[in-house]
C-alpha cells in the first residue's frame, strides 16, 4: 500500500524507530544539548562523552517521528569512536546528502546513514533527519545548550 514510500521508510528506519540505540542518559556527559524542531514538536537531548577530542560515548533521550528517531539513533552509533573533526566532517556530508545539493555524494561512503538519503525527495521531512546532526554540531562546537530548527 505504501510502495511509493519505500525509499523514505526503509526497514532500517523502522528498526531504529522501534528499538532506538543508545536511548539513555549519560550521567557524566561532557556535552548535553537539546534539539527542538518547533514545526513538528520533535525534541531530543543529546549526550556526548569525550576523551580528549575523541567521542567515546553518545546517547539521546526524547521523542520524535520515525525519521528523526532513526536519524539520531544511527548517529549515536556511528559517531562513537570518531574524533570531533571526523564527526564534523560527517555532519557536512550528511547535510549534503539530505539536502540534495550534491547529487554525487558517495552513498557507499555514508554507510548505514545512506538509508536517510530518501528524505531529499521530501522537503517537508528533511529537518526531521537533520535535527540530530544540527544538535551534534552545536554540542561539538560547545557553544549552545539548546538549538532549534525551523
Amino acid at each position, binding site marked *: *500500500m*505504501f510502495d*511509493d514510500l519505500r525509499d523514505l521508510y526503509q526497514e532500517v528506519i523502522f528498526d531504529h524507530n522501534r528499538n532506538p540505540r543508545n536511548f539513555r542518559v549519560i550521567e557524566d556527559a561532557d556535552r548535553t544539548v537539546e534539539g527542538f524542531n518547533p514545526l*513538528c514538536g*520533535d525534541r531530543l537531548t543529546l549526550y556526548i562523552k569525550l576523551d580528549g577530542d575523541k567521542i567515546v560515548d553518545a546517547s539521546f533521550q526524547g*521523542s*520524535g517521528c*520515525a*525519521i528523526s528517531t532513526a536519524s539520531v539513533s544511527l548517529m549515536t552509533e556511528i559517531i562513537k569512536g570518531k574524533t570531533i573533526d571526523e564527526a564534523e566532517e560527517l555532519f557536512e556530508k550528511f547535510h549534503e546528502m539530505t539536502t540534495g545539493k550534491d547529487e554525487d555524494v558517495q552513498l557507499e561512503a555514508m554507510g548505514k546513514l545512506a538509508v536517510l538519503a530518501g528524505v531529499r525527495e521530501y522537503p517537508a521531512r528533511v529537518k526531521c533527519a537533520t535535527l540530530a546532526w544540527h544538535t551534534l554540531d552545536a554540542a561539538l562546537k560547545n557553544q549552545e545548550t539548546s538549538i532549534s530548527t525551523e
Partner: protein
Amino acid sequence: MTQFPIQKIREDFPILQEKIRNKPLVYLDNAATCQKPAAVIEAMSHLYRHDYANVHRGVHTLSVRSTDLYEGAREKVRQFINARSHKEIVFVKGTTDAINLVAQSFGRAQIKAGDEILITAMEHHSNIVPWQILCQQIGAVLKVAPINQKGELQVEQFENLLSDKTRLVSVVHMSNALGTINPVKQLIDKAHARNIPVLLDGAQAIPHMRVDVQDLDCDFYAFSGHKLYAPTGIGVLYGKQELLESMPPYQGGGDMIRKVTFEETEYNDLPYKFEAGTPAIAEAIVLGTAIDYLVDVGMDSVAAYEAELLAYATEQAHKIKGLRIIGEAENKGAILSFVLDNVHPHDIGTMLDSLGIAVRAGHHCAMPVMDFFQVPATARASFAMYNTVDEIDILMDGIKSLIEVFG
C-alpha cells in the same frame, strides 16, 4: 445520510478531481484552508476581465462598478451574519488581522495597566499572541480559563476568572485543534452581566454553522474568507457600531480619512475608518460570491451533513486500536484530531499523503493545547461540506495500514 446534494457540490469544486501521487485527492485539511468552488474561481477571473478598478476613488464607470460590487459584498456579509448595519462590517486581511485590530485599537484605548483580558486554554496562537503583545505594551494581565480532558472549556472556572478588572473576553467559537464548540452564548451572558465586551474568534466556526451576531450578542466577531470557500487575504471584523465608533483608527492612510491637512485629520465614517489603503478588492467581492454559494446550499444543511460525517468518522476511529482522539467535547465541529500509539503524527502525515490523503500533522498553531494533552503534535482530519463517507473509509483504511507497517 440526509438529502444533501453532495454529488453536485463535489462537481462544483474542480480541485477535487485532482490526482495526488496517482490517487484521487482526499482533502481533509479544511481547518487550515478549504478549497474553492468554480463559482468563486470564475468570479475572480470575471472581475479582473470586466469590472475591476479601485474603489471609493474615481467617478469613472469602472470605479463605480467596482465600488458597487465591493459594497455589495459587504452587504452580503452583513446578511450572512445578521449584523444590524453595513457599518459594523470591517474588511480586514483575515481573523489574525481582525484580532490585532481589536487589540491595538480597542485594547490600547480601553485597557489599562493592571486590567485583565480573559481567553481560554484552547485558543489558536492568533488569539493569544496579540493579547500578549498588548499586555506587554500597557502592563495588562492575560488570564486563561482552563479546559478539561475532553477538550471542553471549564465554564465555572471561566466565570470565576471574570473579575472587576476584566476588560475584555476573547474566546474561540470553535477550536481548530480540538473541534470543540464553546457555549458562547452562555459565556457572553456571563461577561455582559459584568459589562465586559466579548470577541469571538470565528475562523473555524463560520464555515460550519449558522452565525447570527445579534442572536449571540457578541461585541466582536472575527473570521477569514479562505476558510469560507473564498480567497486568502480577506476577512471580516464584525463590531457593534457603538464600540467601533468609540475606537481610534488602527492604521492610517487613504480611504480612512475625510479631510487631511498637515495640522489635523478628520477620520472617515464606519467602516472606512478601519480600512486604510486600497483593500483586497477582488477578494472581498469574491467573498460575496462564496457567501452566495453557501446561502444557496444552506448553512443548516451544511451543519447537519457535517455532523453526520463527524459522527461516522468518530465511530470508525474508535474501532482502531491504538488510536486516541484528542478533543471529545460533547458539542463539536467536524474536526478529528488524533494520535496513534506507535506512530508520530509527522509519519502519519507523510504516509497518508502517499495515498492521496491530505491531513495536517503538527501543533495546529495551538502549542498550549498540545502541552495540555502532553503530545508533541497531532494528526488532524478536518472536514468540509464536500467530503464524503467514502473518503472517511479511505482515511481509516490508510490509518489501519500504516499502523501495520509501523508494527
